[in-house]
Structure formats: C-alpha cells, structure tokens
C-alpha cells in the first residue's frame, strides 16, 4: 500500500471530472428501463465500447429467465418486457498485483419507460447536486466503475492480476436472470465491489439483508352469499387470517421485515370469494433469521384455519443475506482510510435493502456495496447525487482496487 498511488489516482480523477460528468449525462439521458430492451442495449453497447477502449476484453452474456415462472412473473409480468438485453462482461488481465477483483453495476433502471425524456440530467450549482432518473440507482456508480478502471490503467498503478466488471441488465427485475452468471463469476473472485449509491449519510454498505419473495394463493369455495351460505368458504377471509399471522413475524429488532405488499381476491361482491392471492417481501438479516422465518411462514400457510380452503405457498430467497465478515470489515477499514486520504469521511454500515452484492457475497466472497456517489430520493423525479462525491467515490474505488491487489485483504483460498 502506498499513499502515492491513491494520490495519483485522485489527481487523475480530478483532472477528468468534466469528462466523467459528461459520460454520466450520456448514461442518464438514455432510457434504460429494464423492460425497454432497446434502451438497455444502447447503454450496454456504450459500456462495451468504452471498456474495450480502456483495454478490457468484452463478452456479451445472454441471461435466461429463471425456471420458476412465478418468480419471473413476480418481477416482470406487469412490465411487458420484450426480452432482456445480454449482460456486459468485461475482463482485464495482466495487473501487476495479486488476485481477482469483481466489480458490478446494473445498467437497467426501475423508472417507467419515458422518464429521461421528461426529466433529463441536470446540475444545480446551488446544491451541488446532479439530478436525473436512475442517477443514483445506479448510473452514477456505473460511470464510477468505468472511470476507476481507466484511472487504474492510465496511472499505471499496481492493480489486481485480473479485474472483471459485469454490467447486468435485470437488477431491477430481481437479477433473477443474471444470478447464475454473477454466481459463476463470483466463485472465481477474491473480492467483490458494487457501486450502488452511497447512503444519504455518505456511508458505504458492508451488510445487506437477505431478500425473499413469497406468494400465497388461497382457493376457497365460491358460492352465492344469499343462496350458498352453507357451502361457501371465502378465500378472502382465509387470506386475511393469514395476513394478520404473517405480519406478526415482522420483527425489526431481530432482523426480520415482512410486508404483504399486495393482495387481491374475489370476482363479485355477492360471492364468497373462490380465489385470493397475496404477495410478500421478506427481509432477514442473516440465514438463521431466514430459516426461522421461512419455517414460520410455511406453518402459517399450512394452517387449516378455514376448512374447505386450500393454500399454496411459493417462497424463494432471491438475494441471500450479505453478512459482515472479518474480510469485509478489513475492506471497510480500507475504504475509511482511503477516504481520509482524499478528504472524505466514509463509514460502512448495514442496511435491509438488497443489491447484486448479495449474490456475490453468497459465494463466500468478501464484498462491499454502496461505493457509488452519494445519492437519494431514489425512484422519484428528484433522484440526485451529491456531485462532488462522483469524483471522490470513483477515486476511492480505484484506490481500493489497487490496495486489494497489493495485499490489503488477502486473496481467497479457492477450492
């Protein structure tokens, strides 16, 4: 580790600030809603060309829908997607340091199609903020990866022997297609760095909850209220009983968040409902909490609380928890130290949100997230980043890569 490398990288990044901002503007103004294949493809090609220009080998990787139709439907059914653009996988070998670093950003957005046209990139000099759809989540971080890679190459500092960058295209669709690709690459990596936005308070993220989705389908016995009250069994009544039981599992103090976010049942007001569906989001701080919660959900679904109704439960944890480990704590220290070297205070904290970092970490890879520029108001018209942190975080990212490759955190033992 040498402070000289960090200084060099920071100086390079400051010298390229206007170029970095111009690149980010381009990214933000291209509409790349997950389901807008052409738009995502335009960003993918821009990334492909740019990374190739830096010296990376670039491969486009097709990502297939998950085998479970309900998982796919849960994320994409109401978005009418015409297929997903292939992911962009970039690889650069020949670093003089050790180890294999995986960096990730997603180039799709959660905004409705058309958002950039009505709310383009803009800078407010008064607040020193830049605004635009998905600027924080996470085009700012995508630009950060590109410029960190350039800085590593152009300054000639030692870097990990191999750097792989994946820009995936369905993160806002739960990464359910990209997951196998990410897992495979993670298995061959020593560290993972993901550039979702830094938290509003400026922090990076060292721990993320595991996120699961669940669907409960109840079939009742449809019958007319007036004439069929002896035979009718309301799927709505059964569902309401289960919803109340499920919400009792919500226990933030013990790292479990459970939200029934949608329900829908019945076809006519005068019939005992024959069908009711509920969808829920379950976040657990670690695998122990998840196993415990999963068992409770299964018991609630199985409970025969209204005879004559039948319940089907579908449950899948699509983002496993990302736990703190001694290695990630060490990486967080490097982030703090590097930030201090360039005049920024960067703590690393835990959140109950998920990202692709969960998937990398699930393969036993020490991973940090939240390494993009600091931003907020995500998924609103006012989504922003703190503009000074754009250069700052890109510099920290490059310096961190340098430090990892030169012994900052040991390489993994690969079985």
């Amino acid at each position, binding site marked *: 580790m040498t402070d000289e490398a960090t200084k060099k990288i920071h100086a390079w990044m400051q010298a390229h600030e206007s170029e970095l901002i111009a690149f980010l503007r381009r990214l933000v103004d291209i509409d790349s809603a997950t389901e807008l294949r052409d738009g995502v493809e335009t960003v993918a090609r821009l990334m492909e060309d740019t990374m190739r220009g830096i010296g990376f080998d670039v491969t486009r990787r097709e990502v297939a829908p998950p085998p479970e139709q309900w998982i796919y439907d849960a994320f994409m059914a109401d978005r009418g997607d015409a297929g997903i653009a292939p992911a962009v996988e970039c690889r650069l070998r020949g670093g003089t340091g050790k180890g294999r670093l995986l960096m990730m950003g997603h180039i799709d957005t959660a905004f409705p199609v058309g958002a950039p046209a009505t709310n383009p990139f803009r800078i407010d000099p008064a607040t020193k903020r830049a605004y635009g759809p998905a600027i924080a989540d996470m085009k700012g971080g995508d630009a950060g990866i590109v410029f960190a890679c350039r800085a590593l190459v152009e300054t000639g500092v030692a870097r990990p022997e191999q750097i792989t960058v994946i820009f995936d295209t369905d993160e806002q669709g739960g990464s359910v297609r990209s997951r196998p690709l990410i897992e495979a690459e993670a298995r061959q990596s020593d560290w993972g760095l993901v550039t979702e936005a830094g938290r509003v308070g400026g922090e990076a993220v060292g721990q993320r909850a595991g996120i699961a989705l669940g669907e409960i389908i109840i079939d009742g016995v449809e019958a007319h*209220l*007036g004439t069929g009250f002896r035979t009718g069994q309301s799927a709505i009544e059964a569902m309401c009983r289960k919803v109340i039981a499920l919400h009792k599992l919500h226990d933030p103090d013990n790292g479990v*968040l459970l*939200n029934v976010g949608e329900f829908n049942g*019945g076809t006519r007001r005068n019939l005992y409902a024959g069908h009711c569906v509920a969808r829920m*989001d379950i976040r657990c701080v670690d695998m122990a909490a998840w196993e415990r919660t999963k068992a409770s959900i299964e018991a609630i679904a199985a409970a025969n609380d209204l005879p004559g109704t039948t319940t089907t439960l579908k449950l899948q944890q699509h983002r496993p928890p990302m736990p703190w480990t001694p290695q990630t704590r060490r990486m967080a220290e490097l982030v703090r130290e590097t930030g201090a070297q360039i005049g920024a205070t960067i703590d690393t904290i835990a959140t109950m949100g998920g990202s692709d970092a969960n998937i990398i970490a699930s393969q036993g890879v020490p991973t940090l997230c939240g390494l993009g520029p600091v931003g907020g108001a995500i998924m609103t018209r006012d989504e922003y980043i703190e503009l000074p942190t754009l250069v700052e975080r890109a510099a920290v990212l490059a310096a961190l890569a340098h430090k990892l490759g030169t012994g900052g955190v040991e390489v993994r033992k690969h079985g």
Partner: protein
Amino acid sequence: MSATATPEKTASNATNALRHWLHAQRNEMLDFVHGLVDIESYATQPDGVNAVGDMLCDALGSIGYETERVRGAPLAPERKWLEEFMLPGFDRTQLGFQRVARWSGDGHGRALILGDLDTAFVPGKGFPFSIDGDRALGPGIADMKGGLTVAVYALKALQATSLNNLEEITCVFSADEQGGSLDARKPIADAAAHSDWVFCMECAREGGKLMGSRAQIGVAKLEVFGRDAHAGSAYAKGISAIEAMARKVQAIHALTDPSREIYLCVGQISGGWRRSVIPGYSMCTIDIRTPGPDAWEEVESKLRAIAGKVELPGSHSTFLIDSHRPGVQWTKKTDKLIGIAKEAGAEFGLDFGVLRSPAAGSSAFVGPMDLPCLDGMGPMGADLMTTNEHIVISSMVERATLLAATLHKLGAGAWDKA
C-alpha cells in the same frame, strides 16, 4: 284481442284447461327458453338485453299486451357511487331498455309479474344450451330465462283458453337486475303502486320451494388509507392498509349470524401495488343481507364502527353503504296468497314449500308497499352462476300452470273470499 272471463267454468275445470293447454306447449316452451338462452344478455350487453326484451314483448304483444320501453330515474348524488360499484366501467345510460307489458281487461284485480332480462354471466363466460334428460342447461336458464318462459306461457294460456279474468296484468322486465336494479327500481315501483298482487319469476328453490320473503340487502365499499413506504429502507414510515383491512375483514365477517338470517361477505378485496412497498391503500366490497329494516340498521351501525376504527395509528378509512334492495317481508297477506296458490296447485296435484330467502331480486322493491308477493314462480332450477346452471324441464309446464291457475283464482275473487 282480449279474452273475457268465463265464470261458468268451475275453478277446477279452469285449472284443467290451463294445464291441458300448457302441456301441449312443452316443446314450444323448450324452444322459447333455448332461444332466450342463446342470447348473451349480461347487463352491460344492451343489444342482448334488448333482444331478450323483444322476444318477450313480441310474444306478449301478439296476445294483446301493450308494450313499452322505459328507463329508470337518475340517482341522487349521494348514491352515484353505486353506478361504478355495480357495473364497473359501464355507462349506465347505455343499459338496455326496461320493458313494461300491460294487459287491461274488465275482470277483477291487478297482478304484477316481475322478470329479469339480464343474466349473471359476464360476456364470454357463458356456455352452450344443452339438454340432459329432464334438465335443460344454459347460462341464465334458471336465473331467470326459464322463469321468463313460464310467465309468457302462463299468460298465453290464460288468453288461449279465454280464462283471463283480471282487470289488469302488468309485466315489468328488468334490464339491470345483476347491476343492482338501479334503473329497474322506478318502473317496478311505479307498476307496484297500482297492483294488488306480485309474482316474481326467479326459479323455484331446492325441492321446488317458492319464496315468501326476501332479505333486505345492500352493498358497501370500504377504503383504507395507510402510507406507502419502501419495505426495506423505510419500513418504519409505512402504515400497511392491507394489515388494517385484514383486521376489519375479520370483524365484518364476524357479524354474520345465520340464526338471525344476517349474512355478510367481503366479495372483493385488493390492496397495494408492489411487493416491496408497504401498502398505503386497500379497498373491499361488502354484500350485506338482513331479514328486515331493524336488523339492517343494527348491522349498518356496527359496520360504520368497524370502518371507523383505527387499527394502526395514522391510518384512516372511507365507508359508503347503501341498501339498494329493501326486501320483502312475510306478512299475513303473504300467507293468504300462498293459500290461494296452494289451492291452485292442489287442483293438479302440485304441492310446494315456501321458504324465507336470504337473497333478494326484483321483487325487493314491492316490500315497502306492503303488497303480497310470491317469488320463485319460475321452474325448478339449481347451480346458478355455474357451468351446470339448469332447470327441470317438466317443471316449466307445472309452474306455468301454477301461475296461470293462481291468477285465474285471483281474478275469480279468491282473495276477497279467503
């Protein structure tokens, strides 16, 4: 053409004549109901509803009834919400016509016959007419195209046998019974205002039972508002309208009390828009059935309390309720009308039970006028609103005979003698 009373015939002879005539029409009746069933006529299909109305009015017009197309009255502003509630997305001014068919003679007494042109089968959800032994299957055949056929042929029988001895027979055929009769209510009430007895052509219930009373029913719409918040990053700011609604639904269903003939059902529910967002909104619809006004008021006030309760701090709700069918009470006049109908039935070997119905239909608007009403005068039918909806074919002749013979007895003065 106008039939005249034939007082020289004895009641029993008259019943025999009606029965004999109707028996010969069995196949024609089956063809008629087949024709009606082949027309899709959900309330939002005005062309179909009008075609069914035309078939009935053509048949009755050909035996001397004057027919007209009418429309209901606009709703009071505070009841406007019912339009969207009953037939979502449908412009009520586009409904098919309500039909009134009236025969006037120089006999005795005024009868009102009620039927519905629309069925419960939403467009595209029907199935083809078929015959399976003594059962005829089809969408809306029991509710209530079989009943319409029985009414038309009973009235034809009275004319054909010259046994129509009444002063007036009025038929009101509703175009929007499945839409809560918002439009049909006025023509029904107008006709009831100058009628003595009412018959409604719903199918006879299990075991061939008629209905002597109908529940007071209504509908409600409950909306709960919480606060949207992301389930991961902002869960503490969220207020789940789904949770609050789930608790209210339990309380609503707990008001059901079969021993008191009080039934409630949350028929439709929805809430939230994204799994990962704590839902800020939920709504449900409620169907409410009570035996009469006292129970209705009690249930309404309990529902208002449930709706108003704040389960989760910061949540609130809105609640709309309307008793759109006042129902029919079982009175001494009902007993009297049942007695006359039973007498008519006995003359050709038909006995039947009469039950208190926990449902309500077009007859519901005559209850407040204290008119004697018999509902379920149609053929025996079952499995309503399913792909097995059917009537018993042989009961069409039987029930048409019952209606015609009962009308004839009323025209012959049975009401005043009883």
